[in-house]
């Protein structure tokens, strides 16, 4: 059974159609990286998986459960799906440790001692055990994002969603977050990652999905998508992202001054 099975997914915001028929399956243990220009619907696709956005039509099954079914207990489904946001979204009024324990206590009803033990394990896993007593505002962006990952992992998810986890970070802090993600992938976690980090996608992904204009343009193993893209749109996007200093003036329609 696939971990995620999406078919004919459409999503509109008012008259703007953001997703125009998405079919995608993610198998257990796979790391799928979704790339594409901004506005292509990558984040919306990710947010539909745990129903942060309500699809307009189509079907989404997570571990066999149809999440768009009105009878579906979405809180129960979300418990099994960890999500990491671009803006970290740590709870500012709680310490790092409390951030990692609160859902364990309130949702999974774990005891204080057990939740604390699991929190410490996961903070250890992201290398922040010594920051347990700090408040989020006292941490760097990279540290905050690693806490956010630990917070999600403490719920024992069978699937992790990453929504541009490094896009809000200063360049020198990107590496520490990617390192944690690479470790997770190596441990066999099923991951769906929306990212602009092409090097990460190339190295870690088992499959790369290129989206543009609300549809999946091309997908395949990273060496194929990056090494020999079949579609012109993919080639153009990769050229612009991988070689930004080589984009010529004629490509963007600029005319040199006479």
């Amino acid at each position, binding site marked *: 059974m696939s971990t995620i099975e999406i078919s004919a997914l459409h999503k509109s915001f008012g008259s703007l159609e953001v997703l125009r028929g998405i079919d995608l399956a993610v198998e257990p243990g796979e790391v799928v990286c979704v790339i594409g220009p901004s506005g292509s619907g990558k984040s919306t696709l990710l947010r539909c998986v745990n129903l*942060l956005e309500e699809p307009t039509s189509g079907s989404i099954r997570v571990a066999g459960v149809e999440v768009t079914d009105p009878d579906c207990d979405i*809180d129960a489904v*979300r*418990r099994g799906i960890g*999500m990491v946001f671009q803006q970290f979204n740590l*709870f*500012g*009024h709680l310490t790092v440790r409390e951030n990692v324990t609160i*859902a364990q206590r309130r949702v999974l009803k774990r005891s204080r001692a057990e939740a604390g033990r699991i929190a410490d394990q996961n903070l250890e896993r992201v290398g922040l055990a010594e920051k347990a007593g700090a408040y989020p505002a006292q941490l760097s962006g990279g540290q905050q994002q690693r806490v956010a990952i630990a917070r*999600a992992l403490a719920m024992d998810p069978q699937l992790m969603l990453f929504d541009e986890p490094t896009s809000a970070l200063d360049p020198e802090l990107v590496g520490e977050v990617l390192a944690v993600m690479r470790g997770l992938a190596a441990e066999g976690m099923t991951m769906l990652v929306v990212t602009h980090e092409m090097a990460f996608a190339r190295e870690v992904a088992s499959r790369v999905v290129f989206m543009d204009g609300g549809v999946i343009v091309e997908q395949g193993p990273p060496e194929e998508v990056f090494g020999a893209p079949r579609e012109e749109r993919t080639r153009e996007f990769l050229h612009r992202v991988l070689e930004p200093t080589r984009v010529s003036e004629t490509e963007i329609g600029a005319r040199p001054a006479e």
Partner: protein
Amino acid sequence: MKLSPRRRRLVARVAGYVVFATVILAVAGAADWGRLSESFFRLDIAGSMFPEAITVALRNTVIYTLLAFVFGLTLGLILALMRLSSILPYRWFATAYIELFRGLPSLLVLFMVGYGVPLAFPDREIPGGVYGSVAVGLGLTAAAYMAETIRAGIQAVPKGQLEAARTLGMSHTRAMISIILPQAFRIVIPPLTNEIILLTKDTSLVYVLGVTSTTIELTKFAGDTLNTRVNPTPLVVAGLLYLVITLPLSQLVRGLERRAGRER
């Protein structure tokens, strides 16, 4: 000689100070300080007001304020949540309530509670006697203001906080209780403290409900003493006692706002 722009600004500022000081001194000089101190600052009359001014009047003022605040805060929180509810009739009710009670004078509401409730429910009465009536009468109005403040506080918590909580499997209610409201209240503590200051002063309206010697508050107490002694000194005493309550509170607000400013 032509002045540079910087010199001109300096001259203008000095001229401003001079005018300001002249006006203040002229007003102060024109007043008859001898007669003022004779009638407003009679120490013997002021002395006769104690200790009742503190043990009864000040105490009741504080009690009325706190009761009205607790009632208003509870109702205000409920209204704020209704205002933000996805259920349309709740939103309608909250909006109508807030508009109505923000538009009515506190005195009028207090009257209506004091005289309307016994008429509407002849077999029941508000528990706590005049204390209960004050809590409801002043709290109804305060709730309207606090509802708007709390609503703004809830909306000031970034949307990602709710999303993160829901993503962890929390229900909407659980996320509100554990994640959103604690942060919203941190934001609205300074404006809510301001609301206590306003309520403190509004307790001066309580006399319309008819208070006795044990339930009397500062303004009525001062007014009664003024009538028996035919001298306005009690007003000054009452004023100073109000400041004893309100000045530390405004100091507290300023401190809290400074702290909030630093955290951001």
